[in-house]
């Protein structure tokens, strides 16, 4: 680099076109539209191609970021795809839902200048470009090892493990409890943020690589882990989310009070927005409150708007600054007209004579001293109670790990939240030949962290399978 003439830094991070807020709140189509080719190239050229890139170590799945960006910059999109897919099997997904601002883009040298390279948008661009090129390229596959791996759960962690291990020559079968593959990518994340056709494409790709898929199969019920161990050399458990949390306040079982999981599953997996063409109904409530401040809360609020709600309010007990949702998602929700009630705590839900929620009693909060998480603790303001009329509430405050496998697998150690205990460096559980990762280990986290855990476990499983 030093020999070359110094290039003037391009600090203009390219925006990605989006559907206009007044349009998109009327439809379920994807909100950001992706970079046009010329914009992608212009953005890619901004990458300094650092010799020791600081973005890569921040990527949970260790993508060669400058490598794939170089492909775009040099108009070699196929080459870029190859580099990208070498480490990431779900680039079209990650390009959309990864919190890049907290990960790779934070490490970008240009971040210090306030204009990090838009790594996520470029990742998405390449993945979407590939989808327009007909059948995806199938990499050269190694000879079969004859080892068999069972993957429990077809979500981001399981898909990553399956992809990594099939490419190393092992036989892989994914067992999925629901009738469609993808886990949270299918039942949780809405169409307008992650089109389901993309998930399907990525799953199809795994099948083309030889991964066997069994849907409608609940490990822990249809067959136990113990029984699978007789047939498979190794098992990875990525069974994901379990029981949704509620706040344990009065009125939570009134009609019209949903967990985020229920609301989103009706909407996404069961296609409630296409009712009655699809049989599963979802209510078109007029005034909807969403409790919580994470990405899931934003998804629920924006879903409610698209279902025709006149008013959607986020109720969050801290302030905007502490909100865990991605900035981009908060902005999208704000643009679409979601009302944010910060420093507000729901106390109880009040029902009508038919058992439907009609009001929420709330309490105002103020920020006090920082708590264990480092965020300022919200403290109630006395006598600040007030009541707001509402005809639905979606509780988006998280969930515990899925209990089915811990409950049916003797000897599998769990933590105090019911999460499976797994070694951070290897994903190994307390049971021989059983690995675990994703939300069932970490509690509710992000897609990319689950994929990162899958990558770590796959490496350890491969070591085990090839050494024994």
């Amino acid at each position, binding site marked *: 680099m030093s020999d070359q003439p110094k290039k003037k830094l391009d600090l203009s991070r390219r925006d990605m076109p989006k559907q206009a807020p007044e349009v998109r709140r009327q439809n379920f189509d994807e909100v950001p539209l992706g970079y046009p080719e010329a914009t992608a190239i212009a953005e890619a050229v901004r990458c300094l191609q650092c010799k020791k890139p600081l973005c890569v170590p921040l990527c949970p799945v260790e993508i060669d970021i400058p490598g794939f960006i170089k492909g775009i910059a040099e108009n070699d999109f196929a080459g870029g795809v190859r580099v990208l897919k070498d480490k990431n099997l779900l680039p079209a997904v990650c390009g959309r839902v990864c919190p890049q601002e907290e990960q790779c883009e934070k490490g970008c040298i240009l971040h210090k200048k306030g204009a990090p390279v838009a790594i996520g948008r470029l990742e998405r661009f390449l993945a979407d470009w590939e989808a327009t090129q007909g059948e995806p390229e199938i990499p050269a596959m190694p000879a079969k090892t004859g080892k068999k791996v069972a993957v429990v759960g077809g979500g981001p962690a399981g898909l990553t493990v399956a992809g990594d291990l099939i490419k190393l020559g092992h036989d892989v079968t994914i067992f999925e409890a629901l009738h469609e593959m993808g886990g949270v990518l299918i039942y949780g994340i809405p169409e307008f943020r992650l089109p389901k056709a993309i998930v399907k494409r990525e799953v199809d790709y795994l099948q083309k690589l030889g991964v066997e898929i069994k849907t409608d*199969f609940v490990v822990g019920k*249809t067959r136990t882990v113990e029984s699978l161990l007789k047939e498979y050399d190794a098992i990875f458990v990525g069974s994901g989310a*379990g029981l949704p949390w*509620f706040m344990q306040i009065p009125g939570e*079982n009134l009609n019209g009070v949903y*967990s985020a999981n229920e609301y989103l599953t009706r909407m996404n997996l069961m296609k409630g927005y296409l009712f*009655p063409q699809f049989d599963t109904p979802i209510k078109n409530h007029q005034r909807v409150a969403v409790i919580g401040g994470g990405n899931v809360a934003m998804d629920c609020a924006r879903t409610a708007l698209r279902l025709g709600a006149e008013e959607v309010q986020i109720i969050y007990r801290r302030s905007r600054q502490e909100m865990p949702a991605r900035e981009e998602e908060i902005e999208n929700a704000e643009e679409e007209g979601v009302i944010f009630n910060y420093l507000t705590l729901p106390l109880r839900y009040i029902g009508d004579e038919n058992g439907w929620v009609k009001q929420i009693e709330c309490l105002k909060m103020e920020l006090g001293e920082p708590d264990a998480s480092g965020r300022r603790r919200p403290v109630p303001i006395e006598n600040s109670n007030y009541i707001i009329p509402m005809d639905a509430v979606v509780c988006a405050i998280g969930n515990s790990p*899925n*209990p*089915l496998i811990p409950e049916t697998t003797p000897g599998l150690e769990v933590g105090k939240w019911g999460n499976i205990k797994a070694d951070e460096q290897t994903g190994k559980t307390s049971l021989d030949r059983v690995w675990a990762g994703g939300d069932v280990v970490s509690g509710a986290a992000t897609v990319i962290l689950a994929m990162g855990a899958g990558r770590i476990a796959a490496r350890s499983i491969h070591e085990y399978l090839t050494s024994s």
Partner: protein
Amino acid sequence: MFNVIESNMIVPNLHLLTLEAPEIVPEIQPGQFVILRAEQDGERIPLSISDWDLEAGTLSVIFMNVGVTTGKLAALKPGMQIPTVVGPLGIKTEIENFGTVLCVGGCYGIGSIFPIARALKELGNRVISVIEARSNYLFYWEDKLKQVSDQLLYITRDGTKGYKGHVRRLPQIIQSVGSKVDRVIVNGCSLLVKLSSDVTRPLEIKTIVSLAPIMIDGTGMCGVCRVSLGETTRFACVHGPDFDGHEVNWEELAQRRKMYFNEESVPLQTSRCEEHAEKILAEHLNLE
């Protein structure tokens, strides 16, 4: 895809469906359920398992045709396929040697109480099976139940067989049994299981009921099936479907079951003639 082996209307509006599900069958225990989808765009509904055949790898469910999905299931013929059968889900019914057990079934519960009675009998219990219906022509599986019961008793609302009335007659039946009844287990519609629990409460006999709230995934993820037992909330799909009938908040359960009452008839109106939808709605209202 799962093969339909048998599909019959066994009594008016109650259907028996036998499905090939060789991976599920070996794991089934009495009191468990499966979730089915009738077609690709279909909803997921839970149905209690009424019997199974290990050798053939088949399981049977019995259901009343009350809505969109049950209508589609009822229309199936042998040789056809459905996309989803998943299970066995839920926790099995607690089966021990309790002594004398009253197994009460109504509607589809006449079927789903059968494997429970069989398992209780195998463990040496004195099993008194009590089945309830509007009229005598609505009974089925009487021979099967006789084989696993010390006594089979009937209640009909019109008095055409056995006791006349409703499960409110259970205390008289319990008295007539001659010995102490150690446990009552009830399968059937919400009204039947609620009324049974109401009448056994003063008698202080432990009463286990199988509940059927609305479910989606059936694996503990969505939480729509929550049921209040005193101060605690439980999820019927993973903590149930069996609960102590004396602890269940019945009013809430009834309200929650009605949540999509209006929507449930919409696909019927859009995909079939309106008379048919109205007929089904009317039947539904009769049941309430």
